[in-house]
């Protein structure tokens, strides 16, 4: 029988769907019977989803420009050919 502590221990694998089928069905049975564990599972799943749904913000223009300038300087010290339009700008 799966206890709440067992469920919590296995929760990571359960969320990632990497548990073996027997363990999975035992954990599924537990959350149909334990409202607290169901809520923990559901809110953990939503936590992951909400982070996955966030696109990275665009880089501030000055940060991008300073990066490209630094690369251009690096290319010069490395003796690299400069055929990058942005590097020439």
């Amino acid at each position: 029988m799966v206890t709440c502590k067992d469920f919590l221990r296995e929760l990571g694998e359960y969320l990632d769907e990497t548990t073996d089928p027997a363990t999975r069905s035992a954990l599924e049975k537990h959350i149909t019977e334990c409202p607290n564990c169901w809520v923990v599972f559901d809110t953990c799943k939503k936590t992951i989803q909400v982070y996955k749904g966030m696109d990275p913000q665009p880089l501030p223009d000055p940060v991008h420009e300073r990066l490209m300038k630094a690369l251009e300087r690096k290319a010069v010290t490395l003796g690299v050919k400069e055929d990058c339009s942005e590097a020439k700008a």
Partner: protein
Amino acid sequence: MAGPRIRNEADPVALEEAALVDQARGGDLAAFSELVRRYERRVYRTARHIVQNDEDAEDVLQEAMLKAFEHLDSFQGNSKFYTWLVRIAVNESLMKLRKRKSDRSVSLDESIETDEEPIVREIAVWDDNPEQRYSQTELREILDKAIDSLKPIFRTVFILRDVEELSTEETAEILGLSIAAVKSRLLRARLQLRERLTRTFKRKGDQILGYV
């Protein structure tokens, strides 16, 4: 010059990327600039989450990209270019943290707390789509603040696995941790974030209940 070695030759994106890496390795700055444009936002986001300020994140971004450009020869092509790049950025970020403060919590080698049972204190049902109650800016602030409250050893694993969506194996390799340590820290990070977000996202009127 070594030819591109890629894992999935049928994938046009992987083929194109391998070609760009190959050109950059041959000294083509334009090709490398294209790789920079593809990944700079993600590298900056990862660094920003680890070092927790804009200035250090920009330093990390620059250092990582410059090192990648200089040492492209050591990229073997048997992992994804982004995985290789983010490993450099994570190392630079952790060095920043270590330099800034001699904080023991910065060490990723510690086995502290990871063997303990995960802790759950607060339980409440969330709204179906709680994020829709907030603007993108507000939501970003809420999520960033929650991540920033985690210890470095937890937030770094969470960022790589659940934000950057790298595999457990890739995360373990980048951080020099065992698979078991990555899994254990990820679960703790997820539970801590869940706990913090519950205070914001719980369904109105519901009580927060105690737990085990």
